[in-house]
């Protein structure tokens, strides 16, 4: 982690996050943006290893910044910072390509630990979000009425059995170490499954959005 961008409108929190980043990743260059417009401009301007994004920005939704990061800098990690970790707030961000989230009110050392885990490829996943993800993929498993030609059934947008099993455990309230123990896997492998789920969620959401746009286009034509 050499460069990081913090998009956050509350100056105190912005500074706190920047300090935390500096502490967690020695030598990191941190820039900040207080608005959506500034955030988008900085994302377009240069490459970032890590981008922390508040969803409720004064001039719009941080979701746009998440999308921009995901689209322009695939190797970058967009992470949502929020005080709400429920699925209503987080699921759209994850669909847009966010790689995890940080709860702003956590004590600084917990926040720092969380940041390090994300940077190491261990994104968090809460039970409500896991349930939403499961419902999302279960809904996709049903036959689609959309034009078949427009929907190439990609294995990329299906969960494997193992991924689904891990997700179900998360949904039922088991912690990551418990799941690793239950499946006889390393923590790292479980984290890999979660990472795959994040990636497929984003891919399938984009495919769905494209389909939806196509369908509307067909209806209008």
């Amino acid at each position: 982690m050499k460069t990081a961008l913090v998009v956050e409108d509350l100056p105190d929190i912005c500074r706190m996050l920047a300090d935390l980043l500096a502490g967690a990743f020695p030598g990191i260059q941190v820039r900040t943006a207080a608005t959506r417009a500034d955030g988008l401009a900085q994302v377009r301007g240069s490459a970032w290893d890590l981008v922390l994004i508040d969803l409720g920005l004064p001039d719009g939704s941080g979701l746009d910044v998440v999308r921009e990061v995901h689209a322009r800098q695939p190797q970058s990690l967009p992470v949502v910072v929020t005080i709400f970790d429920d699925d209503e707030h987080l699921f759209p961000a994850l669909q847009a390509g966010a790689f995890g989230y940080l709860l702003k009110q956590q004590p600084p050392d917990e926040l720092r630990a969380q940041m390090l885990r994300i940077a190491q490829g261990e994104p968090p996943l809460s039970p409500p979000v896991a349930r939403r993800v499961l419902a999302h993929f279960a809904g996709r498993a049903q036959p689609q009425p959309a034009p078949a030609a427009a929907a190439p059934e990609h294995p990329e947008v299906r969960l494997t059995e193992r991924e689904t099993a891990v997700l179900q455990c998360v949904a039922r309230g088991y912690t990551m170490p418990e799941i690793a123990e239950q499946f006889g896997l390393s923590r790292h492998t479980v984290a890999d499954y979660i990472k795959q789920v994040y990636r497929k969620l984003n891919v399938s959401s984009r495919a769905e959005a494209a389909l939806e746009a196509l369908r509307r286009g067909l209806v209008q034509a």
Partner: protein
Amino acid sequence: MASADATIPSTWAAPAGWLTPRRLFSLAALLVLACCGAALWLALQQPWLGLAPQALQPGAEGTQALRSGTGLLPPHQRLLSLAGRDGAALSLSSDDLIEEPDMHPGYAEWGAFYARQDALAAALRSGPVTLSFEGADGAARQQLLTPAPGRPLASLPAVFWFQLMVGAVGALVGAWVLGLRPADWAARCLALTGLGLLAAACPAAVYGTRELALPADLFRLLSTINHLGTISFGIGLVGIFLFHPQRLASTRLFAGLAAVFLAWAVADVAWWLPSPDLAMRLVVVLQMLAAMALGAWQWRRARGQPLERAALRWVLLSFLVGCGAFVVLIICTAMLGWLPPLSQGYAFGFFLLMYLGLALGVRRYRLFDLDRWSLRVLMWVFGLTGIVLVDALLVVAHVNASLSLAASILLCAAVYFPLRQWLWARLSPQAEPDIDALAGRIAALSLAPAVHRPGAWQDLLGGLFAPLRVETPVSAPEGGQAVLLQQGLGLQVPGGHGLPALQFWQRDQGRRLFSPRDARLAERLLRLAGMVVQAREAHEHGARQERQRIAADLHDDLGGKLLSIAQAGDLPRAAGLAREALDDMRLAVQGLMAGPAAAADVWADWRRETVERAGLAGLRTDWQAQEPTPAVALAPRLRMQATRMLREAATNAIRHGQAQRLRVALAVQDGWLAIEVSDDGTGLAAPVDEAAAATGGQGLAGLQRRARALGGHCEIGPAAPRGTRVAIRLPLQAVADNPCP
């Protein structure tokens, strides 16, 4: 109400060649014009005295006699005889005015009648005639009258025009139906019936309304045409029941039957048979009986086929009503004497009635409406027939006529009306649905979660119509009208408001057709459901918007400030409190935004949080959650409060108990949520109550307050063998709107 195919005949076929429906109808119109014109011409050709004679009622003055009507003589004079130029006086009797000559008991009397008619007609044609009549003083007087060479148009009575009208309508309707269904043998028979009606009515109009006499040749020709027409009507009638709604026999058999009847008709008009009773009257009776028997056969064959039954019902009903009314009135006039004698000309009206009903049936017009109409007509006919029959019985038993009528009306009213009610309740296909119950079910349906609505909607309509089959139409119309399918065999109810379009087939397990009333009822129920759903959604939308606004305000204003305090770092206790406040706020916002949550999901969230927090503090968690049934849900407020309480109890164990293990047990039983949190720490010295608001007990005392506010309770005490045990019990259903502490 719209009917998808009510106006399209089910076996419509393009007529062959040049005989299009329009041409056929024009042809029939030409025929009607010719017949009516001929009848009018013949009627106007006859000499005219202007007497308008009336037949005296038999028995009124002992003998059958003629009276003068309005005219040249003083009214109500008894007419005695008429003498022509050659002087021979022809005595007059009411028999000379008889409307229908075939009412004579034998051919001898009938022949004598023709001879007298011929003589009278010749006298009238010869020039001035001498009319003898009985004056007011009883003495015979004489008057010389000169007949006009032709009859004035205005002198033709209404019944003349009525009969022409009956004949014209018969022929035209027959041609219309035949044009629509040229290949249908029932329609062909109907056309024959209409032609017969025309042939019977036009001659009858001429001779039935003659002033006094017609030449015998003309009279006999007209009577012959009338008889052929009547028998043709009967042949057509038999044919209709033979071919409608289902073909019972081959057309060859029908042709044979028709030939027999026609031969009989020839023998009839040639006076070859022993008596007029054995001639036309027997034929007509046989034809009626044959039609009735065939009708019964058709009825049996149509069992389980509601469409065929409905098509038959029209025909049977009009047949029974037409014949029944005719017979009843003949009985009334001839037997009972309490109605004025009915002119045969007007009796044609009953046949027209029957004929129109037959036409509608063969045409298969609005069959789905029949259930309702036919029952009403039948009830009416049964009531009338009952009165007449009882009256006839009483008259036969020599009860005074007016008394017997009153008695029979009373008797029938006493027996018939309750019977009618009972029959109506039993037979009415449109038994009124219970509106209260329906409204209740609609409301329940509309307030149910959206996923349950389609099933509930199908159940509701299915229970109402008891169909054999329910289908979901492929191309489902949204909104619009309920439509009858295949003449009422099916009913298509449109979708809308999240309810699917449905097709129901074979109402009442296939015993009935769907009617426009069913369609309207379904439309009304759909509208009602739509209104309730919309109202509910509008309410929810408003409430959701309001909650979102509050949540956004909390997040932006309160959240930002609390966050700043939490992360300021200079006051650790304030930071901790601010974090707790933020957690509470998250719960509050969650409670605002979310609906009831499945207990299993809440268990999962609690497990993750508790196990993680305990794990960070170095405690092992023993989690014993009873798997809740899928139906158990926690209301947002209960979920929020229970989360806080569990969090508080767990925090207490983690912070103050110096414990190694944390044990959490969750259960839902008999409408109660039970949460038990225990640890193996140092434990409490004594049970905590609100008075013991010591430093360690503050949070625990808060637990008791919260539990009570939710209608539950909380016990805090020592755990066995050591440690603290917090047992919380909360009702799943909120007991009252207690304010949150």
